[in-house]
């Protein structure tokens, strides 16, 4: 069963209980799993004074546990900034971010936070240390978080991402782009997090390699019941991976769509319409009608 179907049964889908029943078990609301990620009124600004630029302007959304949620938009829309604020890579933001029901701090997050949530970056060439072996890249986070059976965990995670033990003592330059992205995924998964933030994980890869990585991400999600928050500019990738999609433009979410709505090519916002038109190939007449949205 695809993961997206299980998420349809998440908190929002449960039938409301009868009032009497609710009173009988007072903390019943707490028994429902909280969303994996809940963001409300997130604002991020860069620079000061006249240079001040608001990259994210009041963004709210929530991702159910086990769901794949997509954030799409063009460069400068603020989608990656949202991801970086959640990951703790930006500490100057306002609003509220909750991970598994707990509000996160702006600065200096607890170690345990990073055992729950990890991130995979766009560029597999830039995100791996060029002079560290795969073994070192995988064992360092394990040692830092005081995991036991480090050897076994490394062997298993390499197996899980489809590489096997032969890759353990290689350097990044001895790997292809797809293999590097598998290592980046292994590094995120080795701490056994339940949430992965994926920032354009396949946009630097050839299409045949992209297919392999997307298949891997889907398999891992089914095996480990992972929650994904995927940032991409590629509408076909987000339609393949996600059950719910938020479209961002100029720091705001302009529309939230179900994947079915996206597949029917039936957005409601004109910006999403234009994005869809631009994503489905070149058409001189459509291009002539493009507008600027900001």
């Amino acid at each position, binding site marked *: 069963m695809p993961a997206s179907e299980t998420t349809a049964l998440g908190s929002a889908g449960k039938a409301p209980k009868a009032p009497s029943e609710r009173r009988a078990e007072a903390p019943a609301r707490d028994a429902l799993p909280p969303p994996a990620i809940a963001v409300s009124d997130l604002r991020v600004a860069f620079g000061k004074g006249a240079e001040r630029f608001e990259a994210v302007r009041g963004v709210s959304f929530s991702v159910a546990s086990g769901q794949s949620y997509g954030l799409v938009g063009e*460069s400068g829309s603020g989608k990656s900034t949202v991801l970086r604020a959640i990951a703790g890579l930006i500490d100057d933001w306002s609003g509220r971010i909750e991970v598994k029901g707990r509000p996160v701090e702006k600065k200096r997050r607890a170690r345990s936070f990073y055992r729950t949530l990890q991130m995979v970056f766009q560029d597999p060439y830039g995100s791996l240390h060029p002079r560290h072996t795969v073994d070192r890249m995988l064992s360092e986070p394990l040692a830092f978080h005081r995991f036991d059976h480090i050897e076994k965990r490394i062997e298993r995670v390499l197996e899980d991402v489809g590489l096997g033990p032969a890759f353990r003592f290689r350097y990044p330059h001895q790997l292809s782009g797809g293999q590097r992205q598998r290592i980046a995924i292994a590094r995120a998964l080795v701490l056994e997090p339940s949430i992965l933030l994926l920032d354009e994980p396949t946009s630097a890869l050839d299409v*045949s390699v992209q297919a392999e990585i997307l298949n891997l991400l889907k398999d891992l999600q089914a095996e480990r019941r992972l929650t994904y928050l995927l940032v991409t500019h590629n509408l076909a990738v987000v339609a393949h991976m996600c059950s719910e999609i938020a479209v961002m433009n100029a720091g705001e979410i302009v529309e939230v769509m179900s994947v079915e709505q996206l597949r029917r090519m039936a957005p409601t916002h004109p910006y999403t319409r234009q994005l869809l038109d631009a994503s489905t190939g070149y058409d001189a007449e459509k291009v002539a009608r493009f507008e600027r949205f900001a």
Partner: protein
Amino acid sequence: MSTLLSVEDLWVRFRGPNRVVEAVRGVSFTLGRERLGIVGESGSGKSMTGRAILRLIRPPGEMSARRLELDGTDLLALTERQMRAIRGHRISMIMQDPKFSLNPVVRVGEQIAEAYRAHARVDRREARVRALEMLHAVQIRDPERVYDAYPHEVSGGMGQRIMIAMMLVPEPDLLIADEPTSALDVTVQMQVLAIMDKLVREKGMGLIFISHDLNLVASFCDRVLIMYAGRIVETCEAKRLHEARHPYTRGLLASLPQIDKPVPRLAVLERDAAWRKQGGIDASV
């Protein structure tokens, strides 16, 4: 259709101490005043084919061809000095990464004006006007401000549009565009394609559009060459790319996720060692 460029049996080799890497292995095609797409994955030789046409392969790389002709001019017979007069003026090339192609210490507008003045006899003022027009044409909002900016002051997407303006301003006969729009947002990408489209239709420019994006090439180009391991394995009308027959092309198409056709798993391309051994196709018209 009149032939603008003929390429016959083009090879590009890189000689290392122990082995020779053959990046392009006997490619033949012709180009008219049309939009010709070259698609393939990294390492297929598509970019090297583009560079070889401009004779831009540097040692230890070397190129050879039986024929390389632009509108009756034998490019292989030209001296390096004569070749420089061809580059930019008659054949322009847009490279992938604007960061390495713009001069970091010259204002971007001046670089465009200089490109124009190198090939057209006009004064500074006229070149400036033309450069501003071109910046406007590539959808830059505030051309006057951007004209005076240095490359580090503009974003990657804007840098790419500046490069495109610079390459188009001399109105070349042939434009080689190597992944010209893959760093751009989809909407800007389409607007840039519209500019190239217009030059092909109105000025009779020939365009070689090198890309890994099969859907984009299918919708934008007239004809497509599919390259694998340094050879052309298939050629077809762009709008019929989805009916392609070669297993490599079919595999690439199947591995693409599609918005309106959901699949639980994407097809993974199984490469056949025999594809590498098969001879290439002559894509001359």
